[in-house]
C-alpha cells in the first residue's frame, strides 16, 4: 500500500477509458449502476489482451520456442501483479482460477472434503454470497460435519455475540466469510473473525470478490488463510480469478482439478503432484485472461485503490441521502461510514423487476433480484431488492438520474 496521499479520482475523465459509454441505451446515456455484479472494461485492459493475442500468444510453461517463452513471461508477470495487489508473501501462493466461485470451491473440495468429518463445524455468515455458502453447506453435508451461520442484525451487520455458543457446539474447522457484502455493502470485521477462527483451530476463508475491486486488501494484515476474488469485477476480463492461500496449507493439501500441467510424474501405478502454483492449475490456463487481469491491476494501481474507495464512499453517502428523500422507499444495510459503494432498497410493494425495467427505459442499469444471497433475503423477508452499485467511473449525476427514474416508476406503478 502506498502511504502518500493520492489525488482524488476524476470519474468523469476516467469514463473516457471505457468504450461501453460510447453508446446510447433507449436513446439515453448509459448509467451503469451494476458494477457489483461485474465491472466495465477500460480500453487499456482490452488492448493489452488484444495485443497479447496478436503478438505473443502460445501456451505457457512448456514450450522451448520464443512465443511460448514470451507468453510465459507475460503470464507470470501478471501473477506477480495480482499477488502484490493483495500483498501475498509470494506469487507462488497465487493460483489463477475461473473466478472467486471456483477459488472457493477449490478450498471446499481440496481442503474441506479431506479434512472435515462428524463433530466438526463449518461456520459461514448470513451475509454470504451463494458462492461462499453453498460449497460449505454441501461439503458439511457430504462429510457429516455441522453447518452454522452467524446471523446479521437489523442494520445488516454481523452479530458476533453468537460466537461462543457456536464454538461450544463442536470443533470449528472452517470460518468462511466475505469482506464486503455484495447485497448490502456491509464491510465485515474479518480480522476479528480470523482471530476467533484461529483460536478454534479453523482455517479462515475470505471471499474478497466484492472487496478487492474497491478497497485495499492485505492478506497478511487480515490474517486469513485463503482469499478469493474475480478479475471481472475489477476491470479485468471474464474467465479468470484468483485464490491466494497460505503456502503451508496449499502444500499440504490434495489437489483439486487433475490433468495436464499440475503433475510431476504420471505412472500407471501412481501420480505425483507438481509444485505451487502449478499443482492447482490443471489444464491450459486462462492465459490471455490472466494477462488481462494483470493489465487491470496496473490500471487500478495507476488510479489508486484508496482513491477508488474514497470516491465510492462519497457516492454511497450521496445516494443514501438522495434515495432517502423518496416517499415509501426502504433502504437496507449499514450507515454510510461502514458501507461500500452499494445501496439496496425496495420501493414500497413495487417488484424490483418492474423497477429495473422502467429504469432501463431511461438508460439506467441496476440489479433486481436476490443477488445470490437468498439466506439474507429470507432474513430480510423479501424475495428480492433493487441494488445500485458504483465504481470508479460512476458520477453523481447518475445517482440523480436514478432518483428521477424512481419517481417515474412510482408514477407508473405506484
Amino acid at each position: 500500500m502506498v502511504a502518500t496521499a493520492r489525488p482524488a479520482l476524476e470519474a468523469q475523465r476516467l469514463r473516457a477509458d471505457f468504450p461501453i459509454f460510447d453508446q446510447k441505451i433507449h436513446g439515453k446515456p448509459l448509467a451503469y449502476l451494476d458494477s457489483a455484479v461485474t465491472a466495465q472494461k477500460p480500453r487499456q485492459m482490452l488492448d493489452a489482451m488484444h495485443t497479447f493475442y496478436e503478438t505473443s500468444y502460445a501456451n505457457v510453461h512448456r514450450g522451448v520456442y520464443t512465443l511460448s517463452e514470451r507468453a510465459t513471461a507475460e503470464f507470470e508477470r501478471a501473477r506477480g501483479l495480482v499477488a502484490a495487489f493483495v500483498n501475498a508473501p509470494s506469487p507462488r501462493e497465487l493460483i489463477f482460477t475461473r473466478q472467486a466461485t471456483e477459488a472457493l470451491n477449490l478450498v471446499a473440495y481440496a481442503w474441506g472434503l479431506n479434512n472435515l468429518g462428524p463433530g466438526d463445524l463449518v461456520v459461514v455468515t448470513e451475509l454470504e454470497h451463494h458462492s461462499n455458502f453453498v460449497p460449505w453447506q454441501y461439503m458439511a453435508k457430504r462429510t457429516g460435519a455441522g453447518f452454522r451461520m452467524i446471523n446479521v442484525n437489523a442494520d445488516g451487520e454481523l452479530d458476533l455475540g453468537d460466537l461462543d455458543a457456536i464454538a461450544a457446539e463442536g470443533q470449528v474447522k472452517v470460518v468462511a466469510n466475505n469482506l464486503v457484502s455484495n447485497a448490502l455493502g456491509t464491510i465485515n470485521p474479518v480480522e476479528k473473525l480470523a482471530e476467533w477462527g484461529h483460536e478454534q483451530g479453523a482455517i479462515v476463508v475470505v471471499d474478497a470478490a466484492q472487496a478487492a475491486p474497491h478497497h485495499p486488501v492485505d492478506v497478511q494484515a487480515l490474517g486469513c488463510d485463503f482469499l478469493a476474488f474475480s478479475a471481472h469485477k475489477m476491470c479485468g476480463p471474464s474467465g479468470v480469478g484468483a485464490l491466494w492461500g497460505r503456502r503451508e496449507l496449499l502444500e499440504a493439501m490434495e489437489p483439486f482439478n487433475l490433468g495436464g500441467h499440475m503433475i510431476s510424474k504420471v505412472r500407471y501405478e501412481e501420480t505425483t503432484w507438481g509444485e505451487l502454483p502449478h499443482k492447482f492449475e490443471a489444464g491450459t490456463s486462462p492465459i490471455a485472461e490472466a494477462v488481462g487481469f494483470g493489465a487491470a491491476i496496473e490500471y487500478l494501481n495507476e488510479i489508486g485503490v484508496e482513491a477508488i474507495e474514497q470516491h465510492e464512499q462519497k457516492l454511497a453517502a450521496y445516494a443514501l441521502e438522495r434515495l432517502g428523500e423518496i416517499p415509501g422507499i426502504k433502504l437496507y444495510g449499514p450507515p454510510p461510514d461502514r458501507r461500500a459503494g452499494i445501496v439496496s432498497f425496495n420501493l414500497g410493494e413495487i417488484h424490483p423487476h418492474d423497477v429495473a425495467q422502467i429504469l432501463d427505459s431511461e438508460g439506467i442499469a441496476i440489479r433486481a433480484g436476490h443477488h445470490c444471497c437468498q439466506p439474507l433475503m429470507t432474513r430480510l423477508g423479501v424475495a428480492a431488492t433493487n441494488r445500485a452499485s458504483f465504481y470508479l467511473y460512476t458520477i453523481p449525476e447518475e445517482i440523480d438520474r436514478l432518483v428521477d427514474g424512481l419517481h417515474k416508476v412510482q408514477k407508473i406503478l405506484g
Partner: protein
Amino acid sequence: MDDLYREVILDHYKNPRGHGVIEDADASAEGVNPLCGDEVSIYVQFAPDGETVDEVKFSGRGCAISQASTSMLMEMVVGKTAQEIAELPKEELLEEVGIPLTPIRLKCALLGLGVLKVALHRAKGTPLPQEWAGLDELELK
C-alpha cells in the same frame, strides 16, 4: 416503456382477476421462477364432468408482468377442458399480454401458464410441453 406497462397490463396488475386460494382444490401446483425467486400457486376446481375448469385462482408474489399475465390467464381458461388447456400454445397467452418481451421477462409472463399445466398434468395426466417436462422454466414444489 409505454409499450410495456400499457393500460391493460396495469389494470390486471392492480386488480388481478382470480386472486386467491381454493381450499381442497381438485388440482393445484406451485412454482418459482429461479431467476428472481417469484412464486405462484394455482388452484383449479373442475365442473361435475371432471374435465372442464369451473373455477381457477392464483396466489403468490411477482412482478407486474407475471401478475398481469397470470390474471389474464385466469380469465382465459375458465370453461376450457384440462386437455384444451394442456394444448394451449403459449403464444395465445402472449398475444393476450400483447407487449414485446425479452427472454428474461418471458419467463415472468409464462410462469403462471407453466404452473397451471403442471397442476393439470398431475391431476389429470395431461401432457406437458417438452420445455416444462424438464422443469426448465420453473421449479416445482
